């Protein structure tokens, strides 16, 4: 293994490009927690944040409840979010309080 690594390093140097690091490890910064307390907050925190940070909601343009319902339905039906049909309306009702318009 040592010989192989040496040969690889030599080949790479000959090619004039940097040697790829053997292992690269990074630590991501903590994610933002933007959901504010209101009825439905626990549902949003539990469901939406399974797959993505809350800033996915807050960087969208302000949307109507109908638009948030469409988004929640897309998350369930297209991206496989573990939402019950009965949870879509409460989630939309909460999201419109967070980033909504009439």
């Amino acid at each position, binding site marked *: 293994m040592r010989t*192989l*690594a040496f*040969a*690889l390093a030599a*080949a*790479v140097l000959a*090619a004039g*490009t*940097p040697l*790829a*690091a*053997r*292992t*690269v*490890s*990074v*630590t*991501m*910064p*903590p*994610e*933002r927690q933007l959901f504010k307390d209101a009825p439905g907050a626990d549902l949003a925190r539990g469901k939406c944040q*399974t*797959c*993505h*940070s809350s*800033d*996915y909601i*807050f*960087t*969208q*343009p*302000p*949307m109507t409840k109908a*638009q948030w319902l469409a*988004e929640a339905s897309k998350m369930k039906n*297209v*991206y*496989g*979010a*573990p939402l019950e049909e009965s949870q879509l309306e409460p989630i939309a009702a909460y999201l419109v309080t967070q*980033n909504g318009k009439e």
Partner: protein
Amino acid sequence: MRRTRFLAGGLAAGGLLSLTGSPVRAAGQTITLPFANGMRPIVAYPQKRPLILLTSRPPQLETPLAVFDEGDAFTPNDAFFVRWHLAGIPTSIDGDAFRINVHGAVERELSLSLGDLRRDFEPVEIAAVCQCSGNSRGYFSPRVPGGQWSNGAMGNAQWRGVRLGDVLKRAGIKAGAVQVRFNGLETPTLSTTPDFLKSLDVELAASPDVIVAYAMNGADLPLLNGFPVRLIVPGYFATYWVKMLDDVEVLTEPDQNFWMKTAYRIPTAGNGCISPGEKTETVPIGRMRVRSFITNLTDGQHVAAGSGQRLRGIAFDGGSGIERVDVSTDGGATWRAAKLNRDYGKYSFRRWETTFDAAAGQTYRLASRATAGDGSVQTTAVCWNPSGYLRNAIELVTVSVS
């Protein structure tokens, strides 16, 4: 207005100009992009200088426009934009253990280490712009859902690697192959979410400019840009530039996966640009459209009076090269040619520059208009489609002279 420049690789704040012209921006500060809900924190992610944070998990980071005014035509690795689709991104990668598996309709399955790539294939280099399909989505009117980018979901790099075509040749593509599908180490949190897979027609995949890159601007790729290897599809939107590429599958039927069949598609009508509510067939997004940006002045900025005010920027297209860039100081009523700087190839940013006379008390509506080698030219017509793709209209930058 006095400006300092943001030094490449530096983490010091103070040099960056925001889109609105105010100096800034260190980690912990914010920037407000000019559309609703445009406030963004400035955050330093691993191997990155402080950038505009769109979302934190999966991470999406935008490059401030002033970065494109730095140095030459290339975007520094530590300022290059970041866009992932799924939250399952490895935060540690063992370069020695990494393998790219080639399988499907091939004569010989391959499992290639990074050493194999570097040792067994001819290295090639290409300068190419990587631009998110949804770059500039925040400017769509009416607004559309999706990642709300300003204009900084793009970057230009010198990519080094091997031709995908050479890899496919070694595997031996079987008769009847129609597409090649790519997968990376990015995985969904839930098994019910479609894994991120992208495909290219086999002719494009085997064409000489498509490469498997192991270096970016002379260094390893940052992990967030796809370390250790990334697919480079010059001229095409970044959706095809699969990061942490570890799986190449030759298909005998067109790919039916979600990210090809449902997502990342543009209308067939109107050359991809339609009216809200209009229904049309769609096709997978493909080549980028010609664009240009002013990089040294920002909208709303005050400039000093004087002749010979510098005006400069970048231009690029989907692979025919930049033929000319014209500039206007009167909102597009009259145009004159800018000087094109060094040509790094038809897929690269092309820097351009010129000067204009700034009279005291005047306001100038500055614009740049690029013409590509294929004859396509930017216009004032603003593209709209429900996914927020393909924006390439002439952009206006209004400055006033103090």
